[in-house]
């Protein structure tokens, strides 16, 4: 068991950066190819999580707890964002019976 732990702790920082980048790009892709507002919302959550993972990795490799505190703040902001954002989406649905983001082009001036 100890050797497994030793091996995990020798994963280079680069691998975590690559993993976070891939997750972030998947989130960007989701925002671009989906038209369902809630899926777009979840893709944004995915991007936020990629950043969280990267911050936690930096924090662990540097032995500095500040990175993990940042993750807390990001989570609080994400929760506030989800609360207000989903309320907006639900209101849009109640007024237009649709959550297609292309439908919202009418918001243009």
């Amino acid at each position: 068991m100890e050797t497994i732990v030793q091996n995990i702790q020798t994963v280079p920082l680069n691998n975590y950066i690559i993993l976070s980048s891939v997750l972030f790009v998947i989130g960007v892709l989701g925002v671009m190819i989906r038209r369902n507002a809630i899926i777009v919302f979840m893709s944004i959550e995915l991007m936020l999580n990629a950043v969280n993972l990267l911050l936690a990795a930096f924090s662990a490799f540097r032995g500095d707890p500040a990175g993990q505190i940042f993750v807390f703040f990001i989570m609080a902001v994400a929760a506030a964002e989800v609360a207000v954002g989903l309320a907006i989406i639900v209101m849009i649905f109640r007024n237009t019976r649709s959550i297609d983001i292309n439908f919202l082009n009418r918001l243009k001036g």
Partner: protein
Amino acid sequence: MESNFLPSDYFPIVLQLLAAIGFVGLTMLATHLVGPKRKTKDKLETFECGIEQQGDARAPISIKYFLVAILFVLFDVEVIFMYPWAVNFREMGMQGLMEMFVFIGLLLAGFVYIIKKGALDWE
């Protein structure tokens, strides 16, 4: 207090998780294989407390539940910040208490607003 915690300390949790999932899977498989199968129309119907079923599970729900869920998320995040405070409560003394009172005071203002606005009233 031990000096160091390692991810390997969570190995028992992984074992327990595997045991739980394995038990559920094995039980379902066993009942599927061992139990007799008599498929009549009444048996295949979804059981709903003896009442005739109507519609599917995707029926729209009232927006009141949704507002309660939103407020739950916000207060849930608030509680997250209380764990680190509670663990260090003794060392921070009076100053820590004041800091938390400011935090809770602002959130309490929000709670009072919610109550005044009648957001949690059920009719």
